[in-house]
């Protein structure tokens, strides 16, 4: 009798503990599942009510009371355009910084550059957005460009924002390569440039590609900077100085004032779903690259 009681108390304690630990351990997954199903659930009305027009139309007139139109194509192109351009700026810059830190910098230089990068990575995106808007954008008037908020400015802002992230990731990737490879290359008479560029970088290629993908993932989801300086016009851009309205900026700008449950509301969630799908695909490809190159 007594033993049984003890047993139940112990079992209870055991179950309680495992439940608690499991709940905490799985909370990330649970949140992800809830979030994803919530977004999918909210986007369904967009697909049933608007359908193909979402991707075929470039006209975004969600609140037009006479003839609303919900084409997100222009905004999707805007998102991709800005992301591509930013990647074009930030990836080479990040690689050069990482390369310099790994190959040429002295210990004190590494310390200074590393702490500068860390500090920069702590700057909130809204500060970078405000800086671009107030100090950099007006410079375009001097160049006779009268659309101060444009793709180029937004991309520069995003470059500042993601540079520390890219540089650290790439540096980590290069640092994870075994020293013997670099030393071997140098011993065989290669220059430091060749050793770093042809031997170490090649060995670190999976890490570097991973850094590329994570950077792109981060840029495409960034909201504050593009909300502030991309111009907010939902058009297909024809030049670097055209304004665009990326998906993230649209959601941020309109979600606060949209009528809950309306088609407009649902389409905004659909925009979120697209961003989520992008992020999902990018993360999976990063995983694939890493697992494929594990033998290196």
């Amino acid at each position: 009798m007594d033993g049984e009681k003890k047993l139940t108390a112990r079992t209870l304690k055991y179950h309680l503990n495992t439940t608690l630990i499991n709940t905490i351990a799985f909370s990330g997954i649970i949140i992800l599942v809830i979030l994803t199903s919530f977004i999918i659930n909210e986007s369904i009305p967009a697909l049933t009510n608007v359908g193909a027009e979402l991707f075929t139309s470039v006209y975004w007139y969600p609140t037009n009371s006479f003839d609303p139109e919900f084409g997100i194509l222009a905004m999707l192109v805007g998102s991709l355009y800005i992301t591509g351009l930013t990647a074009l700026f930030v990836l080479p810059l990040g690689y050069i910084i990482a390369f310099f830190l790994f190959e040429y910098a002295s210990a004190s230089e590494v310390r200074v550059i590393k702490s500068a990068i860390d500090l920069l990575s702590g700057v909130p995106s809204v500060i970078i957005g405000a800086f671009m808007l107030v100090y950099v954008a007006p410079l375009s008037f001097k160049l006779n460009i009268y659309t101060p908020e444009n793709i180029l400015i937004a991309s520069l802002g995003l470059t500042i924002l993601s540079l520390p992230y890219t540089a650290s990731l790439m540096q980590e990737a290069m640092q994870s390569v075994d020293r013997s490879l670099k030393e071997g290359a140098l011993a065989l008479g290669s220059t430091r440039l060749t050793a770093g560029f042809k031997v170490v970088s090649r060995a670190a290629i999976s890490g570097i590609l991973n850094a590329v993908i994570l950077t792109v993932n981060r840029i495409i989801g960034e909201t504050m900077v593009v909300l502030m300086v991309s111009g907010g016009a939902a058009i297909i851009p024809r030049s670097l100085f055209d304004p665009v309205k990326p998906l993230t900026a649209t959601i941020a700008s309109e979600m606060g004032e949209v009528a809950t449950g309306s088609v407009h509301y649902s389409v905004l969630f659909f925009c979120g779903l697209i961003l989520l799908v992008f992020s999902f695909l990018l993360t999976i490809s990063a995983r694939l690259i890493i697992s494929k190159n594990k033998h290196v």
Partner: protein
Amino acid sequence: MRKALLVLLMIAVALIGFAGTMAIKGSNTVFPVSQLWIEELKEMYPDIEITLEGAGSTTGFTALFNGTADIANTSRWIKDKELDRMNEEGKFFIPFVVGYDGIAIVVNKDNQLDNITVEQLKGIYTGKITRWSQLNPNLPNQPIIFYTRNTASGTYETFEGKILNGERMDPRARMVESTQLEIDSIAQNPYAIAYTGYGYVNDKVKVLTLEGIMPSIETILTSEYYLSRPLFMWVDATDGFPETGDVKRYITFGLSKRGQELVDQAGYVGAYGK
């Protein structure tokens, strides 16, 4: 797990159940006015509970019919259809004019243009007029950079209704997140034009006359200025005028001197005491 969810659900239900003894719904234009009033009312009467939702004037009337709102904020007069429904259901709603929304058309200080017509404004915002020289040959042959407000904002609603008249705004319109930012952009950009609530205009920008009439408190209150419209709050008086209670406290405060000052602060023109 299930128990925890149940508890959460119960808390949520309880919160929804107890909150909001008084509900206000309707126009996004009037939204900031209500918001400011509620903030001060809560200081005066800590026990008052008000929920506020902005989702358009039509939603406001619908909520008033359904009884899900005590006050409907609208930026337009009641429609014939709504009047008919009111008569059918034997209901009686009464309007209070709380202020006027006047929209000023602003350009850079260096711009030589002084007056603009409704037709020209429509041309610019629908993308048919793209260069300043098309308005007046003496103006520079430069593109017109035109700014607009967030499509959900009340100012946009008014502008769309009164200027665009059913046509779509050109997608090249630049959208900015705040009125202040809009004003600053105009102050810097010699080829920009924008519309903004009269209350936000400052001397960094130049205000254009519209059809020859300068927006001012007088011309807006008399609607002599074209881009002006009254803002209403509708109260259900089917069971008699609400002489006591939260609705009355709210309206009385709103029409007081302080309430009307807050209308100005929201960027509009107070209807009384001018």
